[in-house]
């Protein structure tokens, strides 16, 4: 009779041990995988990094090859974020604070659905539809805003430019930023909001004073996740962008992103070319790591301003 509680206790301890062991294993596994990926990239990239400059595509060494592509990757990602962030925050705020409840849940669902569309579909849409439709707008920009270096003509006749790629990317990162921001906005303590309203704040002032300070770190990490997706997006850019040398103008063909460069050239690559492309992958890996570290740093720096404490 007295054995029963003992056994259950024993079983409880076993369960505890198994679970903590499994959790530890999962934690270690992710580190091991990350380390394995990094190791693979470094080992495979090494021949390209130490090869004589004239053997690398372009003939001026690896860094001359990768430099413009890195800049192109950043340009595309920045365009995507500049377009997507305000829209995403607006949509998230509307869902969390403005929309009637029934509309809000439906809208949230629709935004999440955007994330379920495969990137190749976005790419096909961008290449087959958006580029063609947007070309006249580029023509207009070139003739009216051409004095700005980023809108310098002659505009691309096909519309397959880095700006089009950026727009497609912005649609792709929109659901990530929106759904995370929405969750964060919803977590704002009700007491803070009510206090702000009680002090006579309008709804917008309440959002500015109570919701934004509380949500800032969360929104920043949402944007950084979006940036990660924009940096690494491959298929959509490969299909949409008419790539080329680094170009300041966003409405001419040109520029290239790392992920698209790898996807386009890997299938037919051999020898040192493979190493070069893997080295490009390593560079993207490092950039993404850097972006995430900066994001962490910003979040910890802003923690004290958050309404959470």
């Amino acid at each position: 009779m007295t054995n029963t509680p003992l056994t259950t206790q024993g079983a409880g301890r076993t369960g505890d041990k198994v679970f903590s062991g499994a959790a530890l294993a999962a934690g270690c596994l992710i580190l091991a995988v990350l380390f394995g990926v990094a190791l693979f990239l470094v080992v495979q990239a090494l021949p390209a990094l130490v090869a004589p400059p004239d053997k690398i595509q372009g003939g001026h060494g690896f860094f001359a090859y990768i430099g413009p592509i890195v800049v192109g990757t950043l340009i595309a990602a920045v365009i995507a974020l500049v377009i997507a962030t305000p829209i995403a925050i607006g949509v998230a705020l509307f869902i969390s604070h403005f929309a009637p409840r029934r509309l809000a849940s439906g809208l949230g669902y629709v935004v999440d659905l955007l994330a379920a569309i495969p990137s190749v579909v976005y790419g096909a849409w961008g290449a087959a539809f958006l580029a063609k439709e947007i070309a006249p707008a580029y023509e207009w920009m070139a003739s009216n805003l051409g004095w700005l270096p980023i809108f310098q003509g002659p505009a691309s006749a096909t519309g397959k430019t880095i700006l089009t790629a950026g727009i497609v990317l912005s649609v792709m990162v929109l659901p990530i930023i929106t759904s995370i921001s929405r969750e964060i906005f919803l977590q704002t303590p009700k007491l803070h909001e009510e206090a702000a309203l009680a002090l006579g704040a309008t709804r917008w002032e309440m959002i500015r004073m109570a919701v934004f300070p509380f949500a800032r770190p969360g929104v920043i990490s949402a944007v950084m996740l979006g940036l990660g997706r924009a940096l690494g997006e491959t298929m959509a850019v490969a299909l949409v962008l008419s790539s080329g040398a680094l170009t300041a103008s966003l409405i001419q063909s040109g520029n290239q992103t790392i992920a698209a460069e790898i996807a386009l050239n890997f299938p037919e690559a051999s020898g040192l070319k493979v190493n070069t492309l893997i080295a490009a992958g390593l560079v993207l890996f490092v950039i993404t790591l850097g972006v995430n570290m900066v994001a962490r740093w910003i979040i910890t720096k802003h923690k004290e301003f958050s309404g959470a404490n």
Partner: protein
Amino acid sequence: MKATRYGRKAALAVIAAGALALTACGSDNATGTNANTQSAAAMKVTGTLTGIGASSTGAAMDAWKAGFAAANQGATVQYSPDGSGAGRKAIIDGSAQFAGSDAYLKDDELASSKAKCGPEGAINVPVYISPIAVAFNLPDVKELKLDAPTVAKIFRGEVAKWNDPAIAALNPDAKLPDLKVTPVNRSDDSGTTSNFTDYLASAAPEVWTDKAAGVWPASLKGENAKGTSGVVKTVTDTPGAVTYADDSAVSGKLGTAQIKVGSEFVKISADAAAKAVEAGKPVDGRAANDVAIKLDRKTTVSGAYPVVLVSYHVVCTTYDKKETADLVKAFESYVVSDEGQKVAADAAKSAPLSKSLQTKAKAAIDSIKAKA
């Protein structure tokens, strides 16, 4: 369970019936290549053959796989379209039994193939010829006459408008529009680009100063798109755009250029492409059974269309096992046979190999042997 079992039986029956039907077709059609079919059938090959290589021959490869499997019960061919470079690497390190490649083995690759492919190394067998069209989107203009220097200038972005004197001089009768020329090239590394730039570099060296390569020269401004379908789609959507693409992929809406060869202009066709390959020379320093062809892009042979892609199957001269050697011989014999070339032409609209090339290819395949 029961339903699936019946389903499976039914499927098997269908496959068997299909295979029977196809074999029947095969023996009907094989009048010209009686010897080939007979030797292949007599061998009774079974097993699995693994190939890696070019994606350009994908459609033809699927047709060959199906046709070969139907004619040889128990024999299957697996082909992984990882790219020409990957294929050549795989045959050298022995991980594939044959490779598909848009270029023949280089001399150093041939030397390193001797480790796995016997003392004579690997050989190249031409299996697929595809003419590359210069396709353009011009309202009201379906045919243009162009020579190599003009094509080179167009793709280098040195011709601004379609009514440029350089084009007008070659086309006195055409109504050329005052439209911007937008050259579109492949954004991915491809055998089509490599053959097209090889043509330009050989036939118009004074204009095309870059080397022939699978990647479009980065220094050139111009639009690009991914894959053959990508460039064709982009050009179809953009008036004034021009590209190069496998003839089979060019849609009816686009015009194709006649290319100046010698003193005449040649319209693109399978026959003209085969004629140009015929005019090529065997590559220097290769064994007698290696059918690597050095294309003469500057050929003046009447009716030859020199902008053409030749795809090879790279096979070993010696295989470790007799079964493998027999399987490779049977499959490659099928590929270069009249029937193999016909199914490829139907599936991929490639140009069939000429009779003399077929004979050379067959002789090369027959020289494959197993390690004694």
